């Protein structure tokens, strides 16, 4: 029995409680940062058992009865997929907290406590091996995010917060019925056991209905076209730390659920609905990109680019060969880092100028060169420039997709071109040309300070690390995917 996994859940939870109870902002900031860094440090321990991970095994299992009369247990474990998603979460968290520490002053204690609660819930989603435990964490992420958007968001935050919660709640409502129906069918809530027994025992109607219930919940979360309409609202209205977490980690819960639950539980239904998923993901890729092209607001652009990029991940999963799925998992991490970084950069700009409209900027190269350099690298990482992280993920997905459907791969690759178009256009509008507003003049607009560099530089370093040495992740991801795929 290993206690590392429960520690990863309890550390931020305990931190959240203490931070909420502390009296003044100084200690709150320090403690929240300390807790999130400690959680990241502890999560590095996930990699200790490298040989087991490269063999595709689940490691560090922890199991305790929770509600034995009903068959629930507190069952946690990590395989090559969960390990990297947990690391993504714990890596992004100090950055989000760093941003809030620096820029949020209103009810900071509550804000930081909610961020830490969020961390517990997200890590729990990636580690849960019991379906109800998974559902618990999956749903619980709503509460902190709801408050984060509703209390610290922009003008239209109340609408966005309620829309976000209601969409997700309605989407996942039927999943709970499916979860209980699976229990009635198999007599267990254990995810590995269900994956082993359910496909053979379930009838075809059960497979289809069960798959649809799960797929709906995850399609809303991802968000897959046409369930994406909550995302731009939520993203644009959310405070920056909320956006970073929402794009960085929260959306991955959808694709992770698709991969971990929907695909292994209902392989036949998945196979018959895969063409639909492919079509929807392609629509999402192209539609998201085209809409992004037209945005006047930097943050909406990044939000729609998320719709497009998440389409790639769904495409990789729907193609369902080892290569494409591994690429999709890698891309989950990549998208988390790149889009998280984009939202961070937008947030830094917003805190300086209190506007996000393209028309308010231009010529920033001259006044804030360090910012613009890092912004360019971030944009290029999101575009998928070779040697940066985005390339490896998208390329692997496209290669895998080509084997199944060259047409799908061809359509998807237009998404890469469009991404280059809208992101580089955005960069041009922000950074190049002449300075047109007084507020953007040299000496008036401050460049990045050390504390801000400490948020963005780790992300940029990771772009290069993954871009140049993707096997660091793929060595763990591929074997886990091979075991997961039927």
């Amino acid at each position, binding site marked *: 029995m290993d206690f590392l996994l429960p520690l990863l859940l309890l550390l931020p939870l305990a931190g959240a409680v203490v931070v909420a109870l502390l009296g003044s902002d100084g200690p709150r900031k320090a403690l929240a940062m300390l807790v999130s860094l400690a959680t990241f440090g502890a999560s590095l321990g996930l990699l200790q058992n490298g040989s087991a991970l490269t063999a595709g095994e689940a490691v560090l299992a922890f199991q305790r*009865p*929770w*509600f*034995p*009369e*009903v068959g629930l247990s507190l069952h946690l474990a990590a395989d090559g997929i969960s390990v990297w998603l947990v690391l993504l979460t714990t890596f992004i968290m100090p950055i989000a907290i760093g941003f809030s520490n620096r820029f949020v002053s209103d*009810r900071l204690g509550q804000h930081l406590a909610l961020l830490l609660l969020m961390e517990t819930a997200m890590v729990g989603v990636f580690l849960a091996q019991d379906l*109800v435990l998974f*559902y*618990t964490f999956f*749903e*619980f992420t*709503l*509460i902190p995010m*709801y*408050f984060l958007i*509703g*209390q610290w968001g922009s003008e239209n*935050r*109340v609408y966005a*917060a*309620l829309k976000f*919660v*209601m969409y997700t*709640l*309605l989407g996942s*409502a*039927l999943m*709970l*019925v499916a979860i*209980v*129906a699976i*229990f*009635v069918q198999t007599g267990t809530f254990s995810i590995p056991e269900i994956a082993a027994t359910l496909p053979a025992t379930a009838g075809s109607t059960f497979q289809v*209905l069960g798959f649809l219930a799960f797929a709906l919940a995850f399609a809303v979360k991802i968000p897959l076209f046409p369930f994406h309409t909550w995302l731009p609202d939520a993203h644009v209205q959310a405070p920056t730390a909320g956006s970073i977490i929402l794009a960085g980690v929260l959306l991955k819960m959808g694709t992770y659920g698709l991969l971990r639950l929907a695909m292994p539980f209902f392989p036949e239904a998945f196979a018959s609905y895969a063409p639909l998923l492919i079509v929807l993901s392609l629509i999402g890729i192209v539609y998201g990109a085209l809409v992004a092209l037209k945005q006047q607001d930097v943050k909406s652009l990044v939000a729609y680019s998320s719709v497009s990029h998440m389409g790639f991940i769904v495409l990789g999963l729907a193609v369902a060969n080892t290569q494409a799925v591994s690429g999709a998992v890698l891309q989950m991490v990549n998208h988390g880092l790149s889009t998280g970084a984009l939202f961070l950069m937008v947030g830094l700009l917003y805190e300086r100028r209190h506007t996000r409209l393209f028309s308010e900027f231009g010529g920033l190269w001259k006044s804030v060169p360090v910012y613009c350099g890092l912004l360019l690298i971030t944009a290029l990482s999101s575009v998928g420039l070779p040697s940066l992280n985005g390339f490896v993920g998208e390329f692997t997905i496209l290669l895998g997709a080509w084997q199944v459907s060259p047409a799908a791969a061809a359509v998807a690759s237009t998404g890469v071109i469009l991404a280059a178009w809208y992101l580089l256009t955005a960069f041009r509008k922000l950074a190049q040309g002449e300075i047109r507003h007084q507020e953007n003049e040299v000496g008036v607009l401050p460049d990045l300070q050390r504390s801000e560099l400490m948020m963005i530089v780790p992300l940029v370093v990771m772009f290069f690390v993954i871009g140049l040495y993707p096997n660091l992740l793929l060595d763990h991801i591929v074997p886990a995917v091979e075991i997961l795929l039927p």
Partner: protein
Amino acid sequence: MNLNYSAILPELVMAAGAIVVLMVDALRRIENHRGDAANRGSGFLLTLSLIVAAGASVAAFAVRGESGLMFQDSARSDALSFGIRLIVLATTILVLLVGSRYVSTFTRYPGEYYSLLLLSATGMMAMGIASDLMVLFIALETFSLSLILLAGMYRHNRSSTEASLKYFLLGAFASGFFVYGSALIYGVTGTVSFAGMGPALQVAADGGPGAVLLWAGIALLLVGFGFKLSLVPFHMWTPDVYQGAPTSVTAFMSVGTKTAMFGALVRIFLMTFPYGFENWTGPLIVLAVLTMTVGNVTALCQTSIKRMLGYSGIAHAGYVLAGLVPGTETAVNSALFYLFAYAFMNIGAFIIVMAIEHSVETDVERSQLRGTGAAMPVLAGFMALFLFSLSGIPPLAGFFGKFLIFRSILDGGLAWLAAVVVVNSAVSAYYYLRIVVTMYFQQRPREVHAPQSSPAMRVGMVLAGVMVLVIGVFPAFFMSLLTVPGL
């Protein structure tokens, strides 16, 4: 003849306690002739009532092992009656605590209030042990009449009086159905005792003589239950009564009545008339689906918090009824667990309403809660907790209640009914979360009244909040407490 008084000790303690409280109050009033003197003694009366309820709880645990029929088969002590006692007593203790200061705002004679509350709880607990139609009716009237008086306790307030009158008239109507149904059943079976009905019911259920009368009797009984449980379409009285009655009474009524009536429903429909129960699942499903859907949809449109909680209470009755439809042991256990969880989260929500109300006369509108998140963080935090639990977000008490109900429904093979429940529950999240929106995301108006609370009220609030969390994190313990073995 089996006169096992110890097995009904909790009810005896409560009944005796109610009388003692009333007498003490009367004697004190004779001692000091001054009008305001009664209020001064309310702390003592509260303590006395709490001791009575606590004593009854101890007694309930002490006699938990005594099971079987007694008093000429008119009462039965078993795991079901224990579950009912537990929930009713927990409700009583909570309501006593939180009403302690509130009660003085609407009556000068708190002794009557405490005494009636204990008496009403006695009736509710007796519903759980009643094992013949006569005892059942007496228990029903005991708690209903006490509730009618409690609802009208704020005598100078029109809506309180209206609530009382409405509850009285419709309650009398419901009792009429109930008695008529009982009479028909008695006519067919020749006995009022549940235990003695078995053979005659079997004959009638097999299509023997009297089958029509028997089914008519049971249907009338079900209508009576429908009124008391506020199942749609017998629910019309509920929102008005919930809104008009003093809030502590509403809190007590919303949980206690449901618990007592569902206990009796299980006793009659699942334990006494199991023959041909499948004939009743159809109507029960229709009632359940109507109840939760109408309750939720109407709750969406409310601006008064008490009214909204009234309609949402109707929806919750629908969930519990849906959970009972399969008629299995699992179903009964799930329903009891749900009611137990509901007791804490629902009373919890009413506690906050009481604290916000600055006098009984004004209703609490949702807009009054604006900005409470920043101004009264503790109060708003607890309210959010209760509302999240009511909407069934894990890992709070309400989630496991709903989870168990899904399981019982799906065990019974009714996947579509489970889907109806779950979609309803997701819809209900909208109106619960809207209150959270008001509390946290909207600015505070300039003129606001500070919340009124007493130490006892805060104890009650924290108690309810802790229970909502603890039931969610350690559901297994409470499940084992409320398990009803073998139907």
